């Protein structure tokens, strides 16, 4: 459903993403791995409209989406989480998740002023609680965002993205800050999301999780695509082992 075609982006002469191409199959979990500074987050930023590419193209359902702003991409079914948390610290945890459902709610200013959305809102709230339970932060139900620990916020972001009901979900290091048990749970969660028909594009350094849940893996190094394939193929690739995994991964 997503096609990346010779995508490049440089910052002050340094090519953060350098002529990268690959396709993402719908309903798959597709991972992007690579050393620090390889260009993974930049790639996400290019796909999700945060940056504009220097050259190349991104196609969503065969239509180019270059230069479209994030909100337009959201309307087309894309949503993402961030490596550097983007939680609205002026709202409660639950409101953050409800914000995720923006496109599925009546967001007119008039309706807001006149209070026409009350009943619909109660449903949204119920759904938000459901999602918070789902990602394992039920304890944060009545908390304000400022009162939460890093790991909880991390998962709250996933809940918010899920609330958007995306067809394509981009997750940037969702397991960072989670322990092995929690990482395992998030891995299962991602599989469940994919099974529900949402395509997942994942950046993650936890190889155990990546290898366990990915249908397809792209390896990046210094902005370039280094390799691509299934978990086995990638793991067997000596270049990948040298640049990223290390011998005993």
């Amino acid at each position, binding site marked *: 459903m997503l096609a990346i075609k010779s995508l490049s982006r440089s910052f002050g002469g340094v090519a953060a993403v350098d002529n990268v191409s690959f396709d993402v199959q719908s309903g798959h979990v597709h991972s992007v791995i690579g050393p620090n500074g390889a260009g993974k*987050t930049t790639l996400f*930023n290019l796909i999700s409209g*945060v940056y504009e590419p220097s050259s190349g193209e991104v196609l969503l359902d065969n239509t180019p989406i270059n230069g479209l702003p994030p909100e337009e991409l959201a309307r087309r079914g894309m949503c993402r989480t*961030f*490596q*550097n948390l*983007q939680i609205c610290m002026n709202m409660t945890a639950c409101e953050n998740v409800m914000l995720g459902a923006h496109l599925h709610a009546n967001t007119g200013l008039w309706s807001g002023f006149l209070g026409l959305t009350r009943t619909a809102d109660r449903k949204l709230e119920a759904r938000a609680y459901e999602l918070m339970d789902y990602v394992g932060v039920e304890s944060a139900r009545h908390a304000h965002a400022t009162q939460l620990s890093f790991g909880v916020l991390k998962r709250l972001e996933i809940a918010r993205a899920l609330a958007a009901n995306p067809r394509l979900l981009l997750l940037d290091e969702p397991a960072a800050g989670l322990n092995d048990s929690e990482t395992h749970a998030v891995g299962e969660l991602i599989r469940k999301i994919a099974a529900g028909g949402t395509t997942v594009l994942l950046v993650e350094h936890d190889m155990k999780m990546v290898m366990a849940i990915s249908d397809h893996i792209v390896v990046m190094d210094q902005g370039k695509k280094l390799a691509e394939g299934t978990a086995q193929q990638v793991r067997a690739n000596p270049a990948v082992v040298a640049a990223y995994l290390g011998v005993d991964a």
Partner: protein
Amino acid sequence: MFNRTTYKKMSDLPQFLFSGLTTGAVYALAALGFSLIYNASGVINFAQGDFLMLSAMVTATLLTKGMALSGSIAIGIAVTVLVGVLLYRLAIQPAGNADVVTLIIITIGASIFIQGVVQVTLGKNQQVLPPWTGDAPLQILGAYVLPQALWVLGTAAVLVAGCAIFFKGTLTGKAMLAVAANRMAAMAVGIPAKRVLQLSFGLSALLGAVAGVVSAPITTTVYDIGLMLGMKGFVAATLGGLGSGVGAVVGGLLVGILEALVAGYISSAYKDAVPFVLIILLLLVMPHGLFGSRKTDRV
């Protein structure tokens, strides 16, 4: 309307430029103070203009009491720096981790308070300081320039250079930037955040104080002049790019020159409005001002 456009001589240009430069230099010094506190705390200090007023008012009052000019100036500056430090110690620091807007409102309160105290103790009369080196105007490129204007320009240049060295070349200067960027991390590496902030308030009060005494022989001073100077200083600082020393100076000079040229060539009635229109337009093209740094976060 008759006559609006009748006598616009190109030969007046040097005069307009010099006039603009002089007012601009005062704005620049006010802007520099803004940038300094902003650099350390992210706060727009609405009392910045009052620092300029305070030093000049104190100095003028001491002069009328018969004290020598140099002594009066020294005390005027010292009092102002003390007030700057106290502003931090008594009003900003106790507010703790309050939002920046909250701190800004505190500075508004401080500005009103300072004006109130000055008005009660030093009076509401307009005051003027004697020029430092005579008041016979010099003729430069056909323009009449007061010797004091050269003092203003020179002082501005020195202070700007000083600020640049402070931020670029000293660890304390960098620590100040670090405190603004991330207070917690700054404390974690052992930067005494409170002392650094206090220093920033003291320094910007010093900048304001010097600006006040050097410009008062030209602009005169009065207890409520701070609002106007503060506003112009803020405009200049934003135009140049808040937080940038060079920006503050260029912004200040630009605002001053724009005002003079608009008054001289276009319309003195709209002399304050035209620069604002231009500045807003410029910001639309360069949202962070002329020398401002771009965003500093990534996602």
